[in-house]
């Protein structure tokens, strides 16, 4: 029983660490632009395919492919935002959110048009789990978690130490005040989109490494990304990470008491409980 519990915690933590990156990206965009960008799913898929092109077609090693996923997710995300979502933002967060749902469907189908429906595989080996007594841990998952943690550390460093990071935090705290101090909101919006949606690109590649790469790769985790962001606190950067772990571990632990078929439902029950006690999420809505 203890082994089963520990195994569920390990599985949940590993699942949470992969979920954390796109959730972090989602909240970065929300913190600065104040609307939920549901196109993160499509952009995660684009990142995953960019990583696949770099790795399987061009023969790049995994770290370079991950960089390609970041660049593709960030570039596609920022350009799509400028073309499709920016004009909707003055109409309110709801209009922009609905626009992002539409954009997500367009992106998903663009990927389908370019690469077809069939699943693809990275040119990377699959390893057997390490066994520690009754507990099994996958090297691939540990590597994914390490990449996710590194990327998160880089984001925190960027927000804390760089000019653009500080500008993003300022806009997130009070956009009007930040503008009156000479911070260019357009520049900050671009930076937030490139950073946030680039992270979604990496997250998409990590999800695809663990699961399968097809046009629905991002869409399959969209609800969990949103849930992680809401649980942690919409717009909160560390909250996204905390939320992802709560969702990941909560879902896995539930399998100890109910059939795995109800795992997703139990995950959302956990969210309901968290939000009943902390309506603004675990860490509130402050960005940082």
């Amino acid at each position: 029983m203890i082994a089963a519990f520990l195994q569920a915690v390990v599985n949940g933590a590993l699942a949470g660490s992969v979920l954390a990156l796109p959730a972090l990206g989602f909240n970065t965009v929300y913190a600065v632009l104040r609307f939920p960008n549901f196109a993160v799913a499509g952009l995660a898929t684009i990142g995953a395919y960019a990583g696949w092109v770099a790795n399987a077609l061009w023969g790049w090693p995994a770290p370079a492919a991950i960089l390609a996923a970041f660049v593709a997710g960030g570039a596609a995300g920022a350009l799509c935002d400028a073309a499709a979502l920016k004009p909707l933002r003055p109409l309110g967060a709801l209009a922009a959110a609905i626009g992002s749902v539409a954009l997500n469907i367009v992106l998903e189908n663009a990927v389908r048009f370019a690469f077809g429906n069939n699943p693809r595989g990275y040119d990377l080996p699959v390893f057997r789990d390490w066994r520690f007594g009754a507990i099994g841990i996958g090297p691939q998952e540990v590597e994914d978690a390490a990449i996710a943690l590194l990327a998160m550390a880089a984001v925190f460093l960027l927000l804390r130490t760089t000019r653009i990071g500080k500008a993003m935090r300022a806009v997130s705290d009070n956009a009007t005040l930040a503008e009156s101090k000479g911070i260019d909101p357009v520049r900050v919006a671009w930076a937030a989109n490139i950073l946030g949606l680039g992270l979604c690109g990496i997250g998409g590649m990590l999800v695809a490494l663990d699961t399968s790469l097809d046009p629905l790769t991002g869409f399959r985790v969209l609800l969990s990304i949103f849930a992680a962001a809401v649980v942690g606190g919409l717009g909160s950067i560390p909250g996204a990470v905390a939320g992802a772990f709560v969702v990941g571990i909560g879902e896995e632990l539930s399998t100890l008491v109910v059939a795995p078929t109800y795992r997703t439902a139990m995950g959302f029950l956990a969210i309901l409980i968290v939000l009943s006690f902390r309506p603004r999420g675990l860490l509130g809505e402050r960005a940082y």
Partner: protein
Amino acid sequence: MRVTVSRRSALAGSLALPFLARTGFAANAIPLGAINPLTGAGGAYGPSMAKVAEALVARINRTGGVLGRPIALDVEDDQTNPTVGVEAAHKLIDVGKVVAIVGTWASAVTTAVAPLCWQSRTMLFTVSGADSITRLPHHGYIIRTQPNTHLQSGRAAGFLLQHESKRVFGLSAQTPFAVDSWSRLKEVLAKGGATGIGDIIYDPKQTSFRSEIDKALAAKPDTLFLNSYAPDLEILLRETYQAGFNGKRFTFAYAATDAVLKALPAGVTNGLWSFAPSPDVTSPAYKAVQAILGISDPDPYSCQIYDHVALVALAIAKAGVASGVAIHDNVRKISQGPGQKVSDPVAGLKLLAAGKEINYDGASGPCHFTPIGDILNCKFLFQVVENQHNKTLFIS
């Protein structure tokens, strides 16, 4: 004179526009619908199914049509999603007034679409396998060319017994056939002295099945029965390999697609068994499907949809009337009667025009159906994965 157009008729008219534009001869054409999984989990099969249906309709139209009328085929994508399937069925039935719908693939889609069909007396031809489908109160408006779960799982269990599986654990995607399939498999295994030690039904939309696999492997199975679709099979194969499982794995051929095998390293998939109802590879109709798709081994569903279109055309020709009721009343008269055996629908149409009786045997096999619409028997293909490719073991 002032012409008024109600909003409702304007809407119906605008919805009908694609039909008129596509067919060009909507006035006297026989409207036929196809609902295929062009995208989603069944996306590997839908496009070739649609291609085969369109090619056969085009050929029938070129050779004079049915009762002197062309067939106007409208193919809709169900995205392997029941909600989308129902929208497509509404469009085909309410706006397009189709006489039949052919080629529904996923059991969940067929189950959702079926009531719309029998209520509107539209014939439904499906390739879905769930037993529950033909148990619906469909009044004879469903014909299924795919062997049902009972027949399939019985044969699967026979194969596992033959290959000395003793302890089988099932991991099944949540589908309408998951429970039936497992209980039949378990029943036949028990008769042969083996045990179905447990079954977990999982949500196929998950991105990881670690917990499910941990539970399954804790029961120490020698064989895993993976009742999956392609996207979840890929994850299951990877994760069972990672978890250190070295036993036998058995799945359905529609899940073990070439794309899934290519997406995983050979070491992960080698030895995976899969099976599928086999088309009649000796039939001239099978050769026609080969020619349409330009490949040597068309999938069973493309063969079955060829037969769907053929059965619709021949039943209408036999009845002398183009309607769902006419197909309902005549489909068995042209497929399992005492008439002359034919495998070419166009030749069948000529014989019917000359007043002869026919018995159509198609690309998928002898199209003989029970009173509730199930196929009576068919052959099965068993295969094994070697170096990222499916290799045929035998057809029986």
